[in-house]
Structure formats: structure tokens, C-alpha cells
């Protein structure tokens, strides 16, 4: 139905797409797979009319078209759920959902019809929040649902889902898949982008693999398996994340007792030993990030104690936390983790400036050398330490954020969704960094929604649900079934 042939697109001399070909068929879901930087988001933006290709041809129903802007794409029946959250915080949920085609009566916007339509869309997605609420008051997951409702509120013939499930809980993702299947049943062509292979295999009929801006393979999904796809993506076989690392020591490094904060989490207790990775698993909104915030002094707790090396400590601010040897890599690396408009060197050196420039004056060459050391040790793909972090791919940005904190030589590393939205290669590198870190006798607290990651990497897993701890699972007891049950069971 929609065919893009030999698309090329470059930004300031950098080729985002070299030779991309992609075909979507009516009534079928095509999964687009590729590492970050492979050009997936660029092709989505071209389909959506936000970018114009430098060369190549787009055909819709066999006719060549030029998609001039988002509005035009919409009128051609192309509907897109973008990867980044594009919600208007200042507008109501209803208006957000109907933003493309606000219902009108006598030339005036009809708020009543708008509310009705929004309600219908939300009901389909099993969402219960009020359409009159300003969207700014929703959680990230709820905002994504609004975005999905917006895309579904049309007679879409082509639906593009760019990593729609990254912020969704399992239930919400299932609802989305149910509706997607319904739409394909009606003859809609769907492009589905995801880093989660389980989803790809359960939803897609076809696959298409991009690597370095070009299509490398395409075919029917039932003819391949995960290993084949991974190999195609990276162009080399990636070692599956091996467990088998040294057993943690018996000495406790961090102990948390009965940590509570009103409205967020209640009675959270756990301990982390030297050389240990503690995974924290739970659905989005279970209060995991909130615990991390409290540990790092970003929010205050109402009760509970934190002990480091057996000594009770007070962590009232991130400054305290850093002094006690904690480091925190937040979930949202683009706004909280890194300063995108600054160079790699500036980012990496930021928490270490005191050590690097004891006499107030910062020396650029010294900073560059310092940053280069970390670029090498984490193998960040970049021409040099002066490159802006914003120009890096997601995986490399995450490496910079890690480097920034590792440079402070912390003893306890808290990471929140460390590999969210980054490709397989970068993921393995991030995992290796964490393993190396604990091998030195340090400890990692890892919040992750990705079950394989939690199971592969953690020595023990704390499961949270609705702000409460549902149990700590030792490695042997941590089966996928047990953990998912604890995270979801009422």
C-alpha cells in the first residue's frame, strides 16, 4: 500500500538514510528493526511529512506522492505515534486527542463533540482518566495513551507506531496491540517499531531490518527468529548477555529500612552487598523511580533509614548523596541525564570539576584529555570530546551519562531504565560497564522494566507494586513467571 524506494536523507553532511526501501502492506503489520542511528526515526519523519527526502520515491496505492507536511500526511490517511512525547501540556486531554480535526459546528469548535469523541477513544484503550484534565497533569504513560488515542482518532489507512510501548505497562501495551490487530483486520497497514522482540514476534506479519541508513533485509516474520534478526541488525553476532559473574561478597554496602513517602511508596526495605546488582522490577508507576529519587536526595522521605557501610546517613540533597559515594543515572537522559547542548567533555567533567580545576579556572585541554579517557574506556562512537552530546545516538548519550558519574568514582550506582530505547550493541556495552563496576566491589541498584535485563544482570530482584515491596527474589527463585506475578498480582 505504501512503498518508499531508495530514500536518501542527510543532515549537515551526515547520512541518516543512504538507501532505504520499505514496503507496507494493507492488513499487515510490518516491524521495522534496527539499531539506534539506523534511520528508523528518520524514515518515520519522512512518512509523516516532517522531513523531505533528498532522493527516492514514495508511492501510495501505486501513485507517486510528495508528503509536504504533517497535515498533508494526515489527509492521505497516515497516522503516526511518535517516539517522543508530543502532547500539549496546556490543553485538555480531549483537545489533545482531537488536535488534528477538532469537530466544528457552524465554523466554531464544538467542545461537547470533542469531549464525546475523546471519551470514546479513551474507553477503547481502557483508559479511565478525565478528558477535561489538562494533559500536563498526566503521567508519562498516560500521555502516551493520549498520543495513541490521537493517532487512532482518524480513518487511518497507514498507522505508524514508533516505539509506542516504551512507556506503557504490560496491560496498556496489550490494549494497544488489540486495537492494532483490529485495524489491520480492517485493512490498515501498520508500521511497528520496537526494541522488544517479544512484541515484534507477537504482533508483526513482516519485518524489515535497517542498518546504517539502509534496508538490509525484509521478509515474513515466521521465517526468522530473534538470533537472525539481531545478527541482521548489528551485522555481526552479539554475545547474548551472559550471567555467570563472581558471587557478591557478604558485606552489605547499602541498606534501606522502611523507607516511606506519602502518596509514593511505603515501607521499602532492601540491602545491596558489595559486588552485587540489585534489580528493581515493577510496572510503570509502581514507585520505583520515586525510591531512587529519595535515595539520591532529590525528594525527602517521611520515615525510614538509609545505612551505608552499616552507618546511618542523612541524604537531604544530591550533594549529600554524592558525598556518600552515590551516583544516579536517571531514566530520562535527554532532560535529566545529560546537557545536550554541551560537548561530551563538558558533560563528563561536570560532576568532577572540583577535582579537575581546584583553582577555579577550568583548563580545556585537561578536560578534553579527561573526557577522551572515558570515551575510550566506554567506546563512545564520536569524532572527539568536543562533539555536542545532542548529536550522539541514544546509546552513546547514555554512555556519556554513565561516564559522567563513573568519573566521580562512586561506590553505589543507581540506574533507572539504563538501556531504555537504545540498541542491542549499546545495551551490551552498558551492561558490561555495570558488571565491571560491581566486580570492583561496588554495588548497583538497577531499575528496569525489561524482564530479560533484570533476570540477566541482577543477583537479586526487588519487585514493587503500587508503592510497596512485593518481595526480594534470589537469583535462583527469580523466574520470569514469579516476578511478573508479583508485579501484577492484586
Amino acid at each position, binding site marked *: 500500500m505504501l512503498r518508499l524506494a531508495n530514500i536518501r536523507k542527510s543532515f549537515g553532511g551526515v547520512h541518516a538514510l543512504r538507501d532505504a526501501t520499505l514496503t507496507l502492506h494493507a492488513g499487515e503489520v510490518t516491524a521495522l528493526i534496527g539499531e539506534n542511528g539506523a534511520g528508523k526515526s528518520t524514515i518515520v519523519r519522512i512518512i509523516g511529512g516532517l522531513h523531505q527526502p533528498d532522493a527516492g520515491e514514495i508511492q501510495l496505492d501505486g501513485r507517486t506522492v510528495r508528503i509536504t507536511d*504533517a497535515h498533508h500526511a494526515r489527509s492521505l490517511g497516515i497516522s503516526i505515534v511518535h517516539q517522543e512525547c*508530543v502532547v500539549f501540556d496546556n490543553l485538555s486531554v480531549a483537545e489533545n486527542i482531537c488536535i488534528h480535526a477538532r469537530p466544528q459546528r457552524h465554523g*466554531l469548535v464544538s467542545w461537547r463533540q470533542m469531549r464525546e469523541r475523546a471519551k470514546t477513544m479513551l474507553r477503547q484503550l481502557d483508559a479511565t482518566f478525565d478528558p477535561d484534565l489538562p494533559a500536563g497533569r498526566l503521567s508519562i504513560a498516560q500521555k502516551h495513551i493520549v498520543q495513541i488515542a490521537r493517532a487512532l482518532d482518524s480513518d487511518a489507512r497507514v498507522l505508524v507506531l514508533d516505539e509506542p510501548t516504551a512507556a506503557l505497562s504490560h496491560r496498556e501495551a496489550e490494549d494497544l496491540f488489540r486495537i492494532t490487530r483490529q485495524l489491520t483486520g480492517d485493512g490498515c497497514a501498520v508500521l511497528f517499531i520496537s526494541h522488544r522482540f517479544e512484541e515484534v514476534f507477537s504482533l508483526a506479519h513482516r519485518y524489515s531490518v535497517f542498518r546504517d541508513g539502509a534496508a538490509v533485509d525484509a521478509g515474513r516474520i515466521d521465517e526468522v527468529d530473534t538470533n537472525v534478526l539481531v545478527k541482521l541488525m548489528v551485522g555481526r553476532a552479539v554475545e547474548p548477555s551472559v550471567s555467570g559473574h563472581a558471587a557478591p561478597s557478604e558485606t552489605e554496602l547499602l541498606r534501606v529500612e522502611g523507607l516511606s513517602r506519602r502518596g509514593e511508596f511505603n515501607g521499602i526495605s532492601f540491602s545491596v552487598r558489595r559486588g552485587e546488582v540489585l534489580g528493581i522490577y515493577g510496572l510503570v508507576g509502581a514507585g520505583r523511580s*520515586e525510591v531512587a529519587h529519595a535515595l539520591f536526595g532529590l525528594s525527602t522521605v517521611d520515615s525510614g533509614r538509609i545505612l551505608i557501610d552499616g552507618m546511618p546517613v542523612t541524604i537531604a540533597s544530591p550533594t549529600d548523596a554524592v558525598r556518600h559515594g552515590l551516583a544516579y543515572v536517571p531514566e530520562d537522559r535527554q532532560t535529566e541525564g545529560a546537557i545536550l547542548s554541551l560537548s561530551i567533555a563538558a558533560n563528563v567533567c561536570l560532576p568532577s570539576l572540583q577535582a579537575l580545576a581546584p583553582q577555579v579556572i577550568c583548563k580545556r585541554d585537561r578536560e578534553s584529555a579527561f573526557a577522551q579517557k572515558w570515551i575510550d574506556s566506554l567506546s563512545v562512537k564520536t569524532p572527539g570530546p568536543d562533539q555536542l552530546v545532542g548529536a550522539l545516538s541514544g546509546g552513546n548519550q547514555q554512555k556519556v551519562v554513565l561516564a559522567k558519574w563513573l568519573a566521580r568514582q562512586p561506590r553505589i550506582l543507581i540506574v533507572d531504565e539504563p538501556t531504555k530505547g537504545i540498541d542491542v550493541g549499546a545495551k551490551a556495552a552498558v551492561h558490561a560497564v555495570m558488571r565491571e563496576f560491581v566486580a570492583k566491589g561496588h554495588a548497583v541498584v538497577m531499575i528496569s522494566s525489561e524482564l530479560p535485563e533484570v533476570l540477566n544482570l541482577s543477583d537479586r530482584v526487588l519487585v514493587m507494586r503500587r508503592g510497596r515491596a512485593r518481595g526480594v527474589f534470589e537469583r535462583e527463585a527469580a523466574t520470569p513467571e514469579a516476578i511478573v506475578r508479583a508485579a501484577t498480582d492484586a
Partner: protein
Amino acid sequence: MLSRDLRLGIATLLLFAAVTAAFPQFARPDNLAGVLNDSAILILLALGQMLVILTRGIDLSVAANLALCGMIAALFNRHFPDAGALSTVAIALVCGALLGACNGLLVWKLRLPPIVVTLGTMSIFRGAIYQLSGGVWVNDNEMSPAFLDLVRYRFLGLTTLAWTAVIAALAAFICLRYLRTGRDLYAAGGNPSAATAAGIDPGRMQFIAYTICGAIAGVCGYLWVARFAVAYTDIALGFELEVIAACLIGGVAIAGGIGTVTGVLLGCLFIGVIRNALPLVGISPFWQMYINGVVITVAALMSARQRTEKRSILEAERA
């Protein structure tokens, strides 16, 4: 948003009640009509300014635009005293819109920062008045009776000046709530990248906002000159700051995307009531600036507190 309008409404009412308690003659209809008459130009300009601020811009050149268009209207009237007041108004409006469109084009097509663009055009417009008039005043004896009388014509107890403000407020309310373009202004200012993805061009919305703001300033140019019966280079000097102050008091967010017509009206009336009450109470009108400043700061403090409250409500719901 609503609660903020409500709070400001209550504050304005309390202020009004306090002044009335001390000076019952303040609440007399003719005095109230006078307050509205005095606030009319502020209301008109603040409505235009709000559109610009909604799209994440700011227009520092409104007062200079007003002065230039006022001078053009006065000179036109001097050369063609029989042309009729309405054609003079039309000329002021078109000139204002063109000047506003210049701002808009610079911001839209060249992506220059609004504060820089309008700071520049503000001085250019003032300079143009001097060029045009040769630095000479146009006095009331050089203005035709029709030119002077249009603003003073009374209908149902209110002057044309006051009616213009009332009608503009109604029109703005309807446009911002029920027209797609109006809604797009909020969308473009609230989240420009999301707006682009939804097929709304934020730059184009900025252009529209500056042009309308300019057109309003142009009309106000005529209103100002006819009301005070004099045109010279420095009329309404510094008035843009009072206009922006009225918007901020009225709850328009300087970061864009948030603001209501009701809020802006209340902001203007608040300033208007204080300005008219101060001489009655026997306080020098120069205190006006202090009061505006305090109100803006308090409003900023309150909205900051409101933001943290909102966040904690959400987290309680989620947990």
C-alpha cells in the same frame, strides 16, 4: 487556570469594595464608565499582547507602533480633514497591521528572537515618527471635529472607546475558544515541536499573532491621539511595559501557551481600579508602579506554589 482567574477576580472585587466603602461615589455608574474608558486602550493592547505571548513571543514595539500610527492618522487628518473619521481608523489599522507583520516576518522567517526584533523595531518606529512629523506636535486645532468626536460618541452610557474594548474582548474570547486558529495559538505556544508534528506551523502562528497585535496597536494609535487631542513623538512612551504587566497580572504565562481573555481583562481592570482610586485615597499616582510590581511578584510566587501542588496531587493519585 480557572482558579487563578477566580482569585484575581476576587482580589479586584475586594479592592473595588474597599475603595467604595471609603468613597461611595467611586461606585457611581458614571465613575465606573470612566474607569472603563481609562482602561480601554490598556485592555485592547493587552489582548493583542496576549496573543503574542501565547506563542512564546513578546512585543515591545506596541507602544511605538501606537505612537507611529497615531501620528500617521493625525497627519492624514490634517491633510484631508474631510476624509471622515472611519477612513482614518482604517488607515491606522492597516499601518499597524503592516508594522506588526514586519515583526512577525522577522520572527517567523528569520527566526530572530522576539525580544531582539521588537526592541529594534520599537526604536525604529519612534524614529520614524520623528522623521514623519519633523519633531513637530499635531495639536487639537489641527484636527477635524469628526476625528475628535468619534471616540467621545456615547452609546448606552459608554463611549466608542469603551465599546471598542468591550467588543474586542468578546471577539478575542470567541476566537481563542471556538476558532481553530485560536486553538492553534495555544497549541503552538504550549509545545511548538508537538504542534509541528500535528501539522500546525508555530512560526506562522507567531506571524498571525504579531500582525493582529500590530493592527490593534494601530487602531489604538488613533484612539489615543483623538482622545488626548495631540500627537507627538513620545506619546505612550514606556506604555508597552504596563501592557505586559497587565498580561502577567492577568495570568498569561510568559513561557507561552497559557492565558485567558478573562484573566487579561481582570488584570487591566485591577490596574485601572488602582489608578483611579489612588487619587481619591490621596495617594500619589506614582505609587501605581510599586503596586503593579508587587502584584506581579506575588502572582509569580502563587503560580509557582500552585505548580508544586499540582504535581503532588498527581503522584498521590498514581501510587
